Every structure is written in structure tokens, then in C-alpha cells.
């Protein structure tokens, strides 16, 4: 099989992993050195595909031959898909070529399980090791970790990779048993624990070799089982707390060819996925707790974003006086982000904040209006009932764009 045919199959097989981030790596540069590659912690999106997703890394599978039969996966052994397998050398050549042409900032390599979890993991490590040691490649490397592989192999992978990830796959253990018979929650969380322990040890001793400095991430498939958003977000919160994950990715289940009867056939729930990402962002960047955003059961509203939903449910806190409030509270106002909150605070050291000052910052002023007080403005909607306000602020029409 020609390289180009393998690439056709093995890129297609890799697209269901949502992550393409090249962020979190330490600063590395090849300026004036042999070899190539640089990282600066930020990551670059080199292209966007018509699904609106960023292309930052060469994201491929080493092979889509797989012994497992996970129902939601296009590469499950019972699936009738074309199969291919790269040699490690082919992956290395593609990575270096794509990197130098400035198409990507590195490699995200995953694989179907062939022969054994250990064998598969060894193959992934080999690619990263040769890139780093023989080609002095300093670009970004993200390796998917096979949960059932020997912890010693996971530890080795972390010496070459910037990021490791183990997919939790589904929000609940029951769903995993039903849809991914060969996988177990205990081995998935066990691998996450191995990564976190190795990472802690490396951070504690400055002379120790770096271990996956970009941390670990995971992915949860949304809409392949009946789990609600509350379940999904509580699982995410637990993972963030326990394994210090950098990111949880939510991947709306995309119907696959020859779909088994156990998974849905509908179009992917993109708006739901979007709301989950918004809620996740509030957990990571704004100090929200899941219980503030959602009850013990149920889904996030689709017509308004989770921050607005929280504000509407907590009207007693609002309106907030921008000239007096704590920065953290300002960042909790709908339509005002952390960055704008910082700008308001530095501006108010110099002058009283007026309404036009807020309008000039990059805030979503229509959303913020009912919730703020400035030296010259008091919201007329302050006494309006939340349900009425919600109808006014709902972004249903704008969101239709999601369906292109």
C-alpha cells in the first residue's frame, strides 16, 4: 500500500479524537542548533478544516487494525473499514516533512491495539524516541497511552512526549462495560494515576528528567450513551481533581459507517458539546464548581450559556457595581471575561468606571447590561423576572449557524 493511501485511511481513523492541542510544552528552540522544532507553550493552529476544527498536529493512528470491539469506535474489530498500518519510519518521515513545511507543530500519535497492549505501546514509543534522539526533533509530541500497557512503558513514553492522554471514553463505568467490553475503568484510571505519579516525581526533583511537561488530557464521548450533562461534568470535575488533567475533551458522538445498533444514528449533538466546553471552561478558568452550574441530574440549557444560566439563577448577587466589586465576581458577570475583568480593575485605579468604558472593552455588552452598575448606569432590567430576561438574552437564533 502506498504511503498516500495509508495516510487517507489512518488520518480518517484518527479524526474522532477531538484534541489537537499543542499547548503546555516548555520553551524549546532549534535556533542555531542541529535538528528542528520549537515549542513555546502556546501552540499554533496551522489550519482549520471545514468542520471548524483546528489543525495543530499531525494526528494519525499508527494502525487501525484493532483487537478491541468498542461499539462507538469506527476501528472496532467488527467494523468493515479499510485497514492500514504505518511503519514507525513512515510516521517519522511524514512528521518531519509536515513540520518543516509549517503545516503542523508536531505529532499526535495513537493506535489500534495490535498483538498486545505492550507491543502497541512499544511501537508508539519507538516513533517518539527516534524523532527525539536521532532527528533531534524539538516539536510537540502527544502520545496516546494504551491503558493496559505496562506502567514502565508509560513511564518511558513520558520521557519523549510533551503530553500523554488516556481516554476515559464514556462518562460512566456502566456504559463502558456495555459499549467497550475489553476496557475497564480501573485500568484507565490506573494509567492516569501512573502518569500523575511520574509527573509529580519529575516536578519534585529538578534534576530528574522531564516527564510529559504538557501534562495529561482525556476525552469523553458525548451522546453515545444516555449519560446526562450532570454526570459528564461531575466525572470531569473528579478527573481534574484527582489526576490534575490539563484538559477534558468532549467529543460529540459522530455516527460511524456500519454503525452497530448499540449506538445512536443521529447527527452529532454539537450544541450540547459546545455548552459542555463552556461549562468546562468555567470550571478551569473561573473557579466555578459543577454544583453551581448544574443539579445532581439533568442537562445544561441549550438556549443560553452556562454562565448566564448561573447568573439568572443567582439574581440576588446582581447587579454588580463595577467600581466596587471583587475582580473574581466581575469575571462571573455574563458577557465579561477574565481578561476584561482585569482591564476594568486596572482602569478603575485611574478613574471611575462609566458605561461607555465597559462598552469599549471587548465585552458582550448586551449580555452584561442587566447585571452591572457603573457610575452613570443602573440597569432598568434589574427588577425584571429571570424568565423574561432569559427570553431576551437567549441566543437561539445565532446558534443556528452551528448547523452551517
Amino acid at each position: 500500500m502506498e504511503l498516500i493511501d495509508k495516510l487517507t485511511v489512518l488520518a480518517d481513523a484518527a479524526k474522532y479524537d477531538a484534541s489537537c492541542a499543542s499547548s503546555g510544552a516548555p520553551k524549546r528552540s532549534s535556533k542555531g542548533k542541529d535538528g528542528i522544532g520549537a515549542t513555546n507553550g502556546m501552540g499554533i493552529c496551522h489550519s482549520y478544516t471545514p468542520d471548524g476544527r483546528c489543525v495543530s498536529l499531525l494526528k494519525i493512528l499508527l494502525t487501525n487494525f484493532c483487537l478491541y470491539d468498542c461499539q462507538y469506535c469506527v476501528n472496532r474489530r467488527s467494523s468493515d473499514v479499510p485497514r492500514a498500518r504505518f511503519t514507525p519510519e513512515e510516521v517519522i518521515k511524514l512528521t518531519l516533512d509536515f513540520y518543516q513545511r509549517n503545516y503542523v507543530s508536531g505529532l499526535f500519535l495513537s493506535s489500534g491495539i495490535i498483538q498486545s497492549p505492550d507491543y502497541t505501546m512499544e511501537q508508539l514509543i519507538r516513533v517518539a524516541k527516534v524523532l527525539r534522539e536521532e532527528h533531534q526533533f524539538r516539536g510537540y509530541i502527544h502520545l496516546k497511552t494504551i491503558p493496559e500497557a505496562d506502567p514502565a512503558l508509560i513511564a518511558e513514553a513520558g520521557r519523549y512526549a510533551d503530553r500523554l492522554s488516556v481516554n476515559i471514553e464514556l462518562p460512566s463505568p456502566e456504559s463502558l462495560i456495555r459499549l467497550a467490553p475489553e476496557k475497564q475503568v480501573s485500568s484507565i484510571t490506573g494509567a492516569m494515576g501512573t502518569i500523575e505519579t511520574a509527573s509529580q516525581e519529575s516536578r519534585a526533583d529538578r534534576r530528574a528528567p522531564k516527564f510529559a511537561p504538557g501534562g495529561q488530557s482525556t476525552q469523553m464521548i458525548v451522546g453515545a450513551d444516555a449519560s446526562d450533562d450532570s454526570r459528564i461534568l461531575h466525572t470531569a470535575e473528579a478527573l481534574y481533581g484527582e489526576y490534575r488533567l490539563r484538559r477534558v475533551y468532549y467529543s460529540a458522538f459522530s455516527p460511524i459507517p456500519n454503525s452497530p445498533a448499540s449506538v445512536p444514528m443521529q447527527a452529532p449533538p454539537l450544541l450540547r458539546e459546545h455548552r459542555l466546553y463552556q461549562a468546562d471552561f468555567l470550571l478551569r478558568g473561573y473557579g466555578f464548581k459543577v454544583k453551581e452550574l448544574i443539579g445532581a441530574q439533568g442537562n445544561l440549557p441549550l438556549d443560553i450559556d452556562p454562565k448566564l444560566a448561573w447568573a439568572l439563577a443567582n439574581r440576588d448577587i446582581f447587579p454588580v457595581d463595577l467600581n466596587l466589586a471583587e475582580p473574581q465576581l466581575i469575571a462571573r458577570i455574563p458577557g465579561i471575561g477574565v481578561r476584561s475583568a482585569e482591564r476594568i480593575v486596572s482602569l478603575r485605579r485611574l478613574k471611575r468606571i462609566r458605561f461607555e468604558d465597559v462598552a469599549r472593552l471587548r465585552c458582550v455588552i448586551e449580555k452584561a447590561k442587566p447585571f452591572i452598575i457603573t457610575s452613570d448606569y443602573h440597569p432598568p432590567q434589574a427588577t425584571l423576572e429571570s424568565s423574561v430576561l432569559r427570553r431576551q438574552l437567549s441566543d437561539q437564533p445565532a446558534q443556528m449557524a452551528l448547523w452551517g
Partner: protein
Amino acid sequence: MQVLCCEDDFECWRDQARQLLRQDIAPHAVVWEDRDHRQLFASEPLPASTPRAGPTAQATRIPARLLDELKRAAQYRVSGRWNLLYRVLWRVAMGERQAMLAGDPDGSELQRRIKSVSREAHHLHAFVRFHPVMGRGGLDYVAWHEPAHDILASASLHFAERLGRQRWLIVSSRDAVCYDGQALHHRQPCPADWAALAESVRDNADPLWQTYYSSIFNPARLNPKVMQGHMPLRFWAGLPEGRLIPTLLSRARAGAQKDGQAEAVANKSGKVIRSAAYAKGDSLAGLKPDAKRPG
């Protein structure tokens, strides 16, 4: 009213502005003309006069951060770009610190320009497409890129960090940068032989990359608005993948966005992996699946 021209050069503008500040000349009494639209009467050299004893005379020291911000905002291409910079500088020198902050009318324009400039640098880092030239012209890689602001000189060293000792050239219609493996050289205007070299490769296709791009795209999640928001239309012509987008969009729509598979994959024949040993629950390690080798 004094009319000046600084050849769109920041150092030149800074010298002029420093002198104006010393002479206590307010922003409304001076105007800079653009290099490309110069009036005949413009650009009298500044008279070397003795500083007046105005309020700014003894205190022309300005914060280092402002100088850095002015320098970045100066890369923003707009007619009359230097006038705002002097107004901000003047107001800060007069003690109005908020003139450089986003909440102020001048400050918000300054910050907006800085943001656009840094976004344009980001676009450079993202959307440059290097074509290998195998040593032609003493170079390894050549690209054509058309930035909207004057960022080529300040933002290109990024590629020396990525490409180590490799030699490369980036050409735009206005200027060019070349890295010879050791140092960066900026030329404005771009030398003709550099432009010709870049012109000869700019439309080269790359089947491997185009294949990857088509395959990694999920047709069941079509969302062209978000794509275009992040990757402005003006760059598409310079991207080997840009030419594929209209076809990918229409095919995804025609396929009714059923599932995520690329058409090229759907057209190949599939392979179910049958493994008796596995089904019986034998250990994975001892297993020799019939589908181990590339198909």
C-alpha cells in the same frame, strides 16, 4: 501646523516625537503623512530649536511599556497611523496614564491596533507554507505570504527557532525576510530574484498534505463559519489546502452529513478482523491476528 514624514520607520518617528515633546508641541499642531501618499509640501525637516520650558520639558521620560506598545502599534497599516501614536505619547507625558489603556478612547484604539498586529503575527506563524527548493538560490525552503500589517521583520525569527540551521525565505509584495542559517535579513522592497523564486513555487500542490487535510475533516460536523472566522478568506489562495475547501464543503452537504468518514476511505474495501482466539478470551499476548500486516 507642522507636516512631517517618518518614512513609516519607527526609529525616525521616535526621534521626531522626542523633539516635538521637548518643544512642547501639542498633537493638534502636527501631522504625519504616509510615505505612500505624501503631499508636495510635506516633510520639512524639523527645525533644531532649543527646548521650551513647558510642563513636559523636564519630564520626557515615559514608561518603557508604552514605548514597546507604540512600537508594536506602529506596525498597523492604516492611513495616518503615526498621529494616534503621538497623541497617546503626548497625553501620557502630560500625566494622563489612561491614554494607553483599553478603557480610554485613544487607548482602546492603540490596544486594538496592537491586538491586530499580534493577530497578524500569529497568522504568519500559522499560515506560512514553505515549499522545499533543494538548495536553489542557496535556500532550503521558500514561502509567499501576504500579511495585512508590517510584521514580517519583527515576527519571522519564530521560523529560525522552528527550523534550526535551515535557510529560508518569506516573500510578500511589499518586503521580504531571508534567514541564511545564522542571521535574519529584511529587505524592503523585496529583491527581484527573491520574488521570482517565491513566485515559481507559490502554487505548488502537496498531495500528501492535501490528502491529510481531506481525511482529518469530519463531514458530519460541517461548520464553515467557524473555519472562516479563524482562517480568513484572504489566506486561502496561499494554502495548498485552501483550494480543496469548496469541494469538501459541497461534498459534505451532498452526502447529507451522514457520518464522519472521508469519501476516499468509504470507497475502499473494508476488513473485519476475525480472531477466534480472541473471541474465546485467550490472553492478548499470545495472539496472532490475521490482520497484523498492512492490508
